[in-house]
């Protein structure tokens, strides 16, 4: 049993034309037993979203830590944290625990100060990767990579991005026992965030 697979999760983030989308499943399990169907793993920080896949306790802890740091930053600097800065901060926080890590594999998606899309993913000790198409994380990454590689196109508009993201996630989690049981999608544009609950197979 791998600690990163104990609770189960599936997260995908994708870029579109002047927008980004991020989607997650909402299952919380204790190995085979499903405990909750509304455990969200994606959290909003102004124009950025952080998706946290992995051990649920660390997902919650890291969310709290990031909120703490983001609030202090905004109070001190009197400005919002850009997604790049947030991503770097997260990377630093994870590496600080290099020899006793948080068991999470995060994904950061957002619009930067010029409303340009930003994506990054990292491993549990903070090694970042910056892409311009999509990042995935969780227990169904094999499935998600396959779906994204097939369905993704550059410069999709909001509606098309929503469809692509949703279909990619739903198809991936249906073949994974540990993720699924509901899904949430957020699309970020310069005018705001559109969030939707997906009607998913509850098994």
């Amino acid at each position, binding site marked *: 049993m791998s600690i990163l697979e104990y609770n189960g999760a599936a997260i995908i983030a994708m870029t579109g034309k002047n927008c980004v989308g991020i989607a997650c499943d909402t299952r919380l399990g204790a190995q085979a037993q499903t405990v909750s169907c509304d455990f969200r793993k994606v959290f909003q920080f102004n124009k950025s979203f952080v998706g946290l896949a992995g051990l649920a306790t660390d997902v919650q802890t890291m969310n709290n830590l990031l909120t703490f740091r983001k609030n202090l930053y905004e109070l001190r*600097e009197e400005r919002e944290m850009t997604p790049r*800065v947030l991503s770097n*901060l997260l990377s630093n926080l994870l590496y600080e625990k290099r020899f006793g890590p948080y068991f999470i594999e995060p994904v950061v998606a957002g619009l930067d100060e010029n409303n340009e899309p930003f994506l990054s993913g990292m491993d549990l000790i903070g090694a970042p990767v910056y892409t311009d198409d999509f990042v995935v994380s969780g227990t169904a990454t094999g499935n998600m990579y396959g779906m994204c590689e097939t369905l993704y196109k550059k410069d999709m508009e909001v509606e098309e991005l929503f469809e692509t993201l949703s279909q990619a996630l739903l198809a991936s989690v249906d073949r994974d026992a540990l993720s699924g049981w509901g899904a949430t999608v957020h699309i970020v544009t310069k005018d705001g965030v559109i969030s939707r609950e997906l009607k998913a197979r509850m098994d």
Partner: protein
Amino acid sequence: MGDSAYSFSLTTFSRTGKLLQIEYALNAVANGRTSLGICAKDGVVIATDKKLSSTLVDTDQVSKVQGITEGSGFVYSGLGPDYRVLGESLLVGFGLGVELVRKARKSSQSYYLQYRENKPVSQLVKSTASVMQEYTQSGGVRPFGVSLLVAGVDADNTPRLYQVDPSGAYFGWKATAIGKNYVNAKNFLEKRYQDDMELEDAIHTALLTLREGFEGEMTNENIEVGVVSNVDGKFRVLTPEQIQDYLDEAN
């Protein structure tokens, strides 16, 4: 920092509610060499009198205008009161300024390591001021005998000039002067300052102001000038050649 035998602060209240150590520190600053700064609409200039009491001193090695981050720099005022007993008081005031520069640079790099973004000048000022305040309330140490003028372009691309005092208080200025003769210098600046001033005018005015209270002839060897423009956001110390060009214009 502080002998372990001194767990109490050396800066304590007088009966009238003053912290005399801080007042004395401010006196040390007021007796130090003149430094001034002007904030223009497209940049900031800081300058200081680098006059040394002996011609034997190698002026290249003396540097009071120091870059801290890519986009900000300090100048400090506040040497020992007696110019003739130069050696020690020079080192003391100098050493303190240098220490603050060192701490500021480290804290800025630390910020970059965490956030992969340059530390904004307003944040730099807050943390430096915080350090100076600590030395007024910690065991076995005394306040810094220097005031700083900090110049930089902030996160929102506006040029900013700050003064930080030994007490840890900091102030944003459009233009200011510290050290010897600061009263006359500030009056001069008040008359000359305009809100829409451009950087080139500001440098010109800074040199004129410095010359007002200068003992003897002001040359490119005995002053130091630092400039940051919001065009490239980089803090630079002017070379003697560049200073000479401005001096020639002023003449």
